[in-house]
C-alpha cells in the first residue's frame, strides 16, 4: 500500500505493541528480562511510549472525525473511548480486590501482621469502592489507566483548541508542565497521603504534545521540520542518556563499574515526568521519525506481526499484560524464581498476549465482514485506538 497520510501507520501499532510487552516484563519485579527493556538503557520507560502514541493516535483518529463529522460527533466518540477505558479500569480493580482480600484473609505470618496494612481499605469498603470509581484509589499497577481516562475526558477541548490554533493548546499545556516542575505540585489520591502516581498535571504535556504532532500530520505536515538540526541534536542527547543509564544498570549489577553522573542525576522523578525523562524520550521520537520510514519493510514482516497486532488491540492487551504480570509474579514467588522459571514465565505471558491479540483481531475482522451474500473484500480497518 502506498504511504498516504490516510493509510495506517504501522509504526504506531508496532511500537505501541512493543511498549505493551515491555510494560508486562517491567511489571514482574526483579525480572531478568527487564535488563533488556527501555528501562535498562533509557531515562524513560515504556509508559512514555504508551502515552505518547496514545496522544498521537487520538489526534489522528478524532481529528479526522472532527473535520468530517463535526464537534459533537467527535466528542461523543472520544467519550465512548474514555468509557471503555473506565470499564476496563473497574474490571482490573475487581481483580485486584479479589487478590488482596484473598491474601489478607488467608494471611498467617505474624512477622508482618502489624505492617501489613495494604488491606486497610477493606475495613471501609463503602469508601474504597467509591474512591476507586472516582479514580482516586489507584493501587499498584492501576495507575496508568486513570491518567489515560482523564486525558481522553479533556481531549475534546484539546481537539477543538488545536483546530483553532496549535499554540492555543501548546502554551497552557507547557506552562502547566513547567509550573509543576518548579513547584512540585502533586494530585492527592486515596487513601490519605497517596498521590496520583502518574501526576496528570505533568503527564498531560506528553499526551497533548503528542496530539499536536498527530494534528500536524492530518494537516498534511508529514515531514519533521528542521530535520537537519534536530537529527544530530537528538542523536547526541539520546546517546548521552543511553550511555549514562546503561552505566547505572551495569553498576547496579556489578558494583565496581562506575555509574556515570549518578550523584548528580539520580533519582530521576517519574511521578512528575522529569525533563530528564521527557527530553531524551523526545530525542528518541525524532530519531525514530527520521530513521524508521513508514513504509519500512520490517513492519510488514512476520516477526513484527504479533507486535503490530498487540498494538492494534492496545486496551485489551494492556489489561491482559497487567493481569499476567501479577500472575507471573505470584507463580515465581510461590514456586521459586530461578532464571529458567523467569524466562518460562515471560515466554508464556508474551505468548498469551500474542495469541489473544490475534484472536481479538479475528473477532474484529469477522464483525466487519459484510453479510455472506455480498461477498467482498473486508473494508479498510479503522485507524488507531478507535473501534
Amino acid at each position, binding site marked *: 500500500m502506498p504511504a498516504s497520510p490516510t493509510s495506517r501507520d504501522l509504526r504506531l501499532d508496532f511500537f505501541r505493541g512493543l511498549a505493551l510487552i515491555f510494560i508486562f516484563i517491567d511489571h514482574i519485579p526483579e525480572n531478568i528480562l527487564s535488563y533488556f527493556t527501555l528501562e535498562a538503557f533509557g531515562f524513560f520507560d515504556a509508559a512514555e511510549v504508551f502515552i505518547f502514541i496514545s496522544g498521537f493516535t487520538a489526534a489522528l483518529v478524532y481529528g479526522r472525525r472532527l473535520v468530517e463529522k463535526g464537534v459533537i460527533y467527535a466528542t461523543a466518540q472520544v467519550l465512548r473511548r474514555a468509557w471503555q477505558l473506565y470499564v476496563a479500569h473497574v474490571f482490573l480493580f475487581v481483580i485486584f480486590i479479589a487478590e488482596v482480600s484473598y491474601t489478607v484473609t488467608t494471611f498467617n505470618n*505474624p512477622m508482618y501482621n*502489624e*505492617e501489613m496494612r495494604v488491606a486497610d481499605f477493606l475495613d471501609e469498603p463503602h469508601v474504597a469502592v467509591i474512591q476507586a470509581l472516582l479514580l482516586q484509589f489507584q493501587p499498584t499497577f492501576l495507575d496508568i489507566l486513570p491518567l489515560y481516562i482523564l486525558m481522553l475526558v479533556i481531549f475534546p477541548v484539546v481537539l477543538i483548541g488545536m483546530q483553532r490554533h496549535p499554540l492555543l493548546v501548546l502554551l497552557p499545556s507547557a506552562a502547566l508542565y513547567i509550573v509543576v516542575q518548579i513547584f512540585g505540585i502533586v494530585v492527592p489520591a486515596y487513601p490519605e497521603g497517596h498521590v496520583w502516581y502518574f501526576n496528570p498535571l505533568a503527564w498531560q504535556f506528553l499526551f497533548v504534545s503528542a496530539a499536536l504532532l498527530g494534528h500536524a500530520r492530518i494537516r498534511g505536515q508529514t515531514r519533521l521540520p528542521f530535520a537537519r538540526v534536530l537529527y544530530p541534536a537528538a542523536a547526541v542527547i539520546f546517546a548521552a542518556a543511553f550511555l549514562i543509564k546503561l552505566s547505572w544498570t551495569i553498576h547496579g549489577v556489578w558494583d565496581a563499574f562506575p555509574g556515570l553522573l549518578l550523584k548528580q542525576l539520580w533519582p530521576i522523578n517519574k511521578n512528575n515526568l522529569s525533563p530528564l525523562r521527557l527530553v531524551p524520550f523526545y530525542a528518541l521520537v525524532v530519531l525514530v521519525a527520521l530513521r524508521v520510514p513508514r513504509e519500512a519493510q520490517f513492519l510488514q514482516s512476520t516477526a513484527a506481526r504479533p507486535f503490530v497486532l498487540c498494538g492494534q488491540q492496545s486496551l485489551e492487551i494492556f489489561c491482559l499484560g497487567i493481569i499476567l504480570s501479577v500472575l507471573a509474579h505470584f507463580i515465581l514467588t510461590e514456586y521459586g524464581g530461578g532464571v529458567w522459571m523467569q524466562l518460562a514465565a515471560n515466554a508464556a505471558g508474551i505468548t498469551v498476549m500474542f495469541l489473544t491479540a490475534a484472536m481479538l483481531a479475528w473477532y474484529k475482522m469477522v464483525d466487519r465482514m459484510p453479510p455472506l451474500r455480498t461477498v467482498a473484500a473486508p473494508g479498510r480497518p479503522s485507524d488507531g485506538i478507535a473501534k
Partner: protein
Amino acid sequence: MTRGALLSAAVLVALVVGSPAVHAEHECEVPPEMMQVSAKLPHLAARLRAHEPVNIVAIGGASTTGTAAGSPDLAYPHRLQVALTKLFPDVPITVVNKGVPRQSTRQMVGRFATDVIPEDPILVIWETGISDAVRGIEVDDFTSALQAGIDEVKNRSIDIVLVDMQFSRSTATVIDFERYLTAVHGVADLDGVYVFPRYEIMRYWSEQNMFNFDEVAADERARLAARVYDCIGRKLAQAIKLAVQ
C-alpha cells in the same frame, strides 16, 4: 549395616536432635554473595580496637520491635547483641531497641533527635521502607527522607547500617517493594553505606523452606518468628564484623 555407618548415623542423629545451636547455625546459612560487605564502619572499628564499650541503636518498625516473637529478648536487636558479644567477647556491647511499628521513613527521621542521638551510639542500625511501600509513599519523598536520616547520623561521626524490607511470600504479590528497594540500595550506594539485604536473604530462606508460616500451627508461629529474628541477628553480626575488619 557396618559399624561405621551406624556410628555416622548416630552422629547425625546427635547433630540434628542433640544440639540446637548447631542446628540453628546451619539453618541461618545464606549463599556467600549475600554476605558481601564492601562498606566500612570506621568509628565502630576504632571503638572495638580500643576495647571501649559499644552502644548501638536499632531504630525501625514492627520487625525491630519484634512483637511477633513474643518478647523483646527474641527480637533481632537483642539477638544481634548476643551474636556480637560472641564475636567480640572482650568488648561490652549493647544494642538498644527503638522500634515503633508503622512509621514512615520520614516519621522515623523525626525520632532521631529524641530516640537515637541521646543514646550516644557509635552505630545506628536503621530498618526501614516497609511502611513506605505499604502506604505507597512517593518514592522521591522516601528517598529524600532516607538521605536526610543518613546525613544526620553521619554528620555526628556515627556509623550507620541500613536494613531493607522483610520478605514474605504472601505479601510479595500485593505490596510493590521493588521501587523502594531500588531507592534504599541507590541511596546507600551513593553514600557508601552498607545495606543488610534482609529481603534477599529472607527470600532465600523462604525458598529453602526454612520458614513457611503456611504449614505451621498457630501456636508455633511465634517460635518460627523468633528463629528468623535470631538468624537475622546472627547474619547482621557477621556482616558488621566484615565491615570493621
